[in-house]
């Protein structure tokens, strides 16, 4: 079986996002970019499945600008076998990304698609579910444990009340949550070998997929600044503020 993993190039999680002066988005020029951390977990899971003998090939797919090739190389350095870049300089909505992934799924026929549950840039948390809906493959989102048994896959999911487990049939879409695994570091010899692994580049236009979107970003603003602290007069007032003003309890 083949495993397809999605890897997105995003602002490095150590870098604080800064809103552009013209409010058109986040400043991404000349800042450090890296693989979406949830996607690293997805790559790791795919590699573990392969290393356990349950898959033959791990294919890393990225959709984005030419620079996303670096993100694919990172996945290859971790151990993925080959890469596919669907190149576009446009910022695509999850629906368009899901349609492009479907295009690759139809071509590659993977037994499993593993994606991060969300990207830390737009925080949408949609692509995996959309891909599942579009392809008819079942979905197992927010996975914290994946157990394969032939073409039946038991997935433990992180839900609001704790954990639940479901069983899906391969081919399926899994999205990785934070506690699924701890991704490995790329080994130096593998970083060097990654350069020689195959990486196919496809233009979005050549896929024939309609990537237009009904959603547009009007503007992006800084969040409201933290308000100056207040001294409360009583425990009751404190609890009231925490419940109704800060809404943290």
């Amino acid at each position, binding site marked *: 079986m083949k495993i397809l993993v999605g890897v997105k190039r995003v602002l490095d999680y150590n870098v604080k996002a800064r809103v552009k002066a013209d409010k058109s988005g986040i400043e991404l020029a000349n800042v450090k970019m890296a693989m979406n951390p949830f996607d690293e977990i997805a790559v790791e899971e795919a590699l573990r499945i392969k290393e356990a003998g349950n898959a033959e090939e791990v294919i890393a797919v990225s959709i984005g600008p030419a620079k996303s090739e670096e993100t694919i190389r990172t996945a290859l350095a971790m151990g993925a076998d080959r890469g596919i870049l669907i190149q576009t300089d446009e910022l695509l909505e999850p629906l368009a990304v899901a349609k492009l992934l479907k295009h690759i799924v139809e071509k590659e026929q993977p037994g499993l698609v593993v994606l991060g549950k969300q990207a830390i*840039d*737009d925080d949408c948390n949609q692509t995996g579910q959309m*891909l599942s809906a579009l392809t008819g*493959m*079942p979905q197992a989102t927010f996975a914290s444990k994946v157990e394969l048994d032939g073409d039946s896959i038991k997935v433990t999911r992180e839900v609001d009340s704790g954990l639940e487990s479901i069983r899906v049939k391969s081919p399926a879409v899994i999205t990785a949550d934070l506690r699924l695994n701890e991704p490995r570091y790329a080994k130096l010899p593998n970083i060097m070998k990654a350069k020689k692994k195959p990486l196919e580049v496809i233009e979005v236009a050549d896929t024939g997929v309609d990537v237009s979107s009904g959603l547009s970003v009007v503007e992006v603003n800084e969040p409201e600044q933290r308000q100056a602290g207040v001294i409360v007069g009583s425990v009751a007032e404190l*609890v009231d503020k925490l419940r109704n003003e*800060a809404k943290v309890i």
Partner: protein
Amino acid sequence: MSTLILAEHEAGELRPATLSVVAAAAAIGNDIAMLVAGSNCAGVGEKAAALPGVSKVLVADDAAYEHELAENLSALVVSVAGDYTHILFAATAAGKNVMPRVAALLDVSGISDITEVKSADTFIRPIYAGNAMATVKSDDAKKIITVRTTAFDAVSDTGGSAAVESVASAGANDGVEFVGAELSSSDRPELTSAGIVVSGGRGMQNGENFAMLDEIALKLNAAVGASRAAVDAGFVPNEYQVGQTGKVVAPDLYIAVGISGAIQHLAGMKDSKVIVAINKDEEAPIFQVADYGLVADLFDAVPELSKALDA
């Protein structure tokens, strides 16, 4: 223009999250219909009908909906989507699981986690983990949305009198099967990943007194931490230490009890979203970083707080 909300419910009751989604729907300003899907959920349908502003309740009663499987729920929502201009879900694990499917099946964009309704087609949602707020506008015929429930005040659960009608099940997908729910582990959340942290300092006076903090932590599903001074004094083990040389935490809520706020401690918790300080010394530096400060003897305040949390 009309809005459909997928209700979330559990043990015969609507989840509070759904009441917040109704508030968001009210802000959009359309007629509101609510879809209740579940197994033996007629009672929930009645409760939904009592929500203010809800004019119609659709009940789909089928074992296929018992475990909120996204495949089944999304098929159902699409089957009743009809003329609704807005379909809203709570931004819960369940809502996030279903919403994107519905959007994809209807071939429109999904709009995740809105925190504000600017108009019927324009919404504000956080991006980059809340470090920026995006205003997004949808030109799609249907707006498919999840709502961040903490951003909207829940509506009351009485006062409405909607008509209830039942709708046909859209069937079950055989590619997926619910296996079981695992009880939330009773263990305390881990310090560095806990949503709430309650920390004690030298003001706690001894290790036994940390039991007071344990009690609060249990009620808030919080982790317990400590300042270096408390660890050095032997009140609690090393792994409790929050600070420069201990653990760095950034929970949604950090409650510092009897902690003066040495720089090394602040370095370990200053990125917390909301900081509460309880200290009897009003000059304690911890108050400079606290969002809410309470100048009080912790031995009075903490038991009182524990009681207030039960209310």
